[in-house]
């Protein structure tokens, strides 16, 4: 950006060339990093937390991150082909989980949840995904399609409006109370994973008691991610999605039905959000009409952290954010003597986000030069 002055004092040249902004940012980053490191060392020195506690926090962070990751896929897919941020995505997630609550209550009252847990859970996943998919497709049809050619900020503001509209629509449908999901006995308790006894080699591992819900959430998220990856990379419709993301006009000229592709993208993002809703319910067991706001915000953050538009990036960002949120406050702040560090979860999460974006403006796996590749 510097304009070369033909004649100028050396001092002025230095001033022009010296990247003040970058210098300040790097300094800020160093301060944050130093604070984090100092806090961590102090925490580990104090030794308040046993290794088992860290393991617990880490695993619950991974489980939480898995849910963020799957919601983040919806943001990333839509951004990848339309370059808009669908801020109502959190409510798409809420719609599925909340609707499935009533199905779960029905299944619980006739004993299905206890006698056929696998079938019941499959039913919940299908219902939740279908509802979320429907909401996402309607959203695209009503709120975004008419604004296809508008400046980028317009759909963003529309999305915020749609988000509130959906929240209060569902409040009207289902009431304003927080509702506790019926518990599924089959997924309560722990699995002891990693038990190993090989006598003649004298190896005796006791294993680790993983909470079933954590394991299911993580595996479920991995499965969903793999399905999506396969769709995008290996199917015709996935190829069309990538083509539309690359260049909408050329794709249309090549015979790709752009509208159909965009609807499909919203639908698949919505279905993923609905499935994530059930994973979320396994972990947190409660639904309320406002439940989409924070997970949606965090998932968006995760998508940006990983590199918006990148499917692998969304998964990576979700995991990192989840782990930071559970481990971060206790690790960075507890030893530094900050009172009630767990009130500061968002500060830790967003602090790290800023730190990453200073050095990698496109996120971990995003295109650094903003070529908008899906």
């Amino acid at each position: 950006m510097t304009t070369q002055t033909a004649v100028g004092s050396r001092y002025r040249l230095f001033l022009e060339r010296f990247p003040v902004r970058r210098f300040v940012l790097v300094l800020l980053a160093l301060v944050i990093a130093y604070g984090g490191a100092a806090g961590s060392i102090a925490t580990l020195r104090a030794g308040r937390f046993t290794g088992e506690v860290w393991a617990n926090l880490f695993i619950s962070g991974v489980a939480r991150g898995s849910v963020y990751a799957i919601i983040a896929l919806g943001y990333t897919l839509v951004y990848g082909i339309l370059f808009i941020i669908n801020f109502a995505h959190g409510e798409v997630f809420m719609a599925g989980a909340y609707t499935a609550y009533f199905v779960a209550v029905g299944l619980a009252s006739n004993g299905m949840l206890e006698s056929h847990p696998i079938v019941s859970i499959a039913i919940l996943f299908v219902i939740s995904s279908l509802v979320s998919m429907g909401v996402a497709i309607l959203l695209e049809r009503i709120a975004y399609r008419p604004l296809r050619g508008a400046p980028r900020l317009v759909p963003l503001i529309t999305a915020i409006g749609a988000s509130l509209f959906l929240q209060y629509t569902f409040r009207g449908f289902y009431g304003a109370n927080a509702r506790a999901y019926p518990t599924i006995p089959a997924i309560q308790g722990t699995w002891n994973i990693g038990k190993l006894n090989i006598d003649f080699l004298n190896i005796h591992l006791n294993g680790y008691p993983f909470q079933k819900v954590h394991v299911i959430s993580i595996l479920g998220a991995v499965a969903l991610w793999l399905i999506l990856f396969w769709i995008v990379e290996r199917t015709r419709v996935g190829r069309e999605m990538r083509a539309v993301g690359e260049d909408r006009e050329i794709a249309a000229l090549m015979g790709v039905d752009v509208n159909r592709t965009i609807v499909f993208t919203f639908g698949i993002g919505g279905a993923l959000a609905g499935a994530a809703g059930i994973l979320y319910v396994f972990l947190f067991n409660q639904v309320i009409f406002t439940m989409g706001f924070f997970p949606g915000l965090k998932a968006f953050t995760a998508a940006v952290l990983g590199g918006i538009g990148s499917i692998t990036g969304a998964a990576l960002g979700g995991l990192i954010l989840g782990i930071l949120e559970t481990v971060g406050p206790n690790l960075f702040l507890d030893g530094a003597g900050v009172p009630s560090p767990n009130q500061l979860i968002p500060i830790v999460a967003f602090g790290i986000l800023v730190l990453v974006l200073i050095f990698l403006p496109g996120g971990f796996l995003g295109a650094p030069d903003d070529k908008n590749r899906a």
Partner: protein
Amino acid sequence: MKFKNYRGLLALLMVLALVAAACGSGSSDTTAGSSETTAGSSDTTAGSTDTTAPSSDTTAAAGAPEVCASDAFGCVEVAAGDPIKIGSLLVTTGPNSSLGLDSQYGIELALDYADGTFDDTNITIQGHDVVLVPEDDGCSAEGGTAGANKLAADTQIVAVIGTSCSSAALGTADKILGDKGVTLISPSNTSPALTAEATHNPFYYRTAHNDTLQGAAVAEFAYTFKGIKTAATIHDGSPYAEGLANAFAASFEALGGTITSQDAIQVGDTDFSGVLASIQAESPELLYFPIFVGEGSLLVQQAKTTLGDSVVLTGSDGLWSDDFYAAAGDGVFLSGPDVSAFAGDAALYKDIFLPRYAEKYGSEPLSAFHAHAWDAANIVLGAIEAVAVDSGGTLYIPRTGLRDAIAATNGYTGITGTLSCNANGDCQPSATIAVFEIVGGQQAADPVFSVVKSLE
């Protein structure tokens, strides 16, 4: 254009981060407006505010009576044929709606029964119907501000019964309404700060107990009754939760116990593994979490799996709701007013109030403060009857005079006990605080522990 996009994104994220942080913090500045009112009104109140005949029956010529000119905030003028409006400001939406609706039902029943019968028609005072204007306090400072502004804008509102949550009153609703000379009387606020010398608004009263009492009672339950020596607390940043957690901690340490940690969470958070790990590191025997239903339901489930069965989990009256019982399951304790043994008119409560409540609203009481609301409504009605002056068909109700009449409440027998208002707005000089256990997905009718605590 090249890097415009991610800069915009970064800015957006920053803004969102700020919003998220702001959403979580429920702290509001607590500067109470100490608008010194010159109480220069004539003393029109008798000692007790029973339903006595109205005062001087001077049917003078039309026009405002003398008392309105001398009242610092003037009079509410109710024209002939118009109703007398009493506002309510209670949480009627969101996860804490059972707390507010329960109080609202108590008020509705009181207005109905004030003439001696339940007939679904409210009492009339000097020929004017009494109507309730309900508003929502949102259980937050923002909600309290919005609701109070709405009520304060209506000059016909005589008094307001509310709020449900201390956060909606402290420095918000109490100041907004107090600045207009509208008395706010709460059936449900328990934060000690509301009636502390420094922060009490002169137009604020409450029939709910002060949480210094509840904190002391829970400490006694833990230390003396259960023999517990170490405890941890969690609050959510709201004045109610923080005040109660601190009151408990202070009393528990005074008894000789050790507080291992005092943590806080964020409203809207769902995963408490971090804070629970921090608590577990000190292995306390009891965890006291006087928070609200949204977070409480999740916290209690995660605490059960993280801390195990050995830790005694105890919540408070902000969690008295079916949603919480369903989430918490058995073996969790909840503190609160002892509804099984109100010190007041037991026959009225058991034989008249409760059956009617069940008949009209189709359930057992939803939460803890229906009886306190009944008492608050009756105190307001008695005060209106004592100070209202009819002049040429129009009813004049002096605002400061009404406040003074409420303040003069002394030895009034309600359901919750014998009420006497002190100078700082506490009308419940002593309260029976109990600890209940959740059994079979319901709060047990009989408490496991109950004690009477008095304000010094």
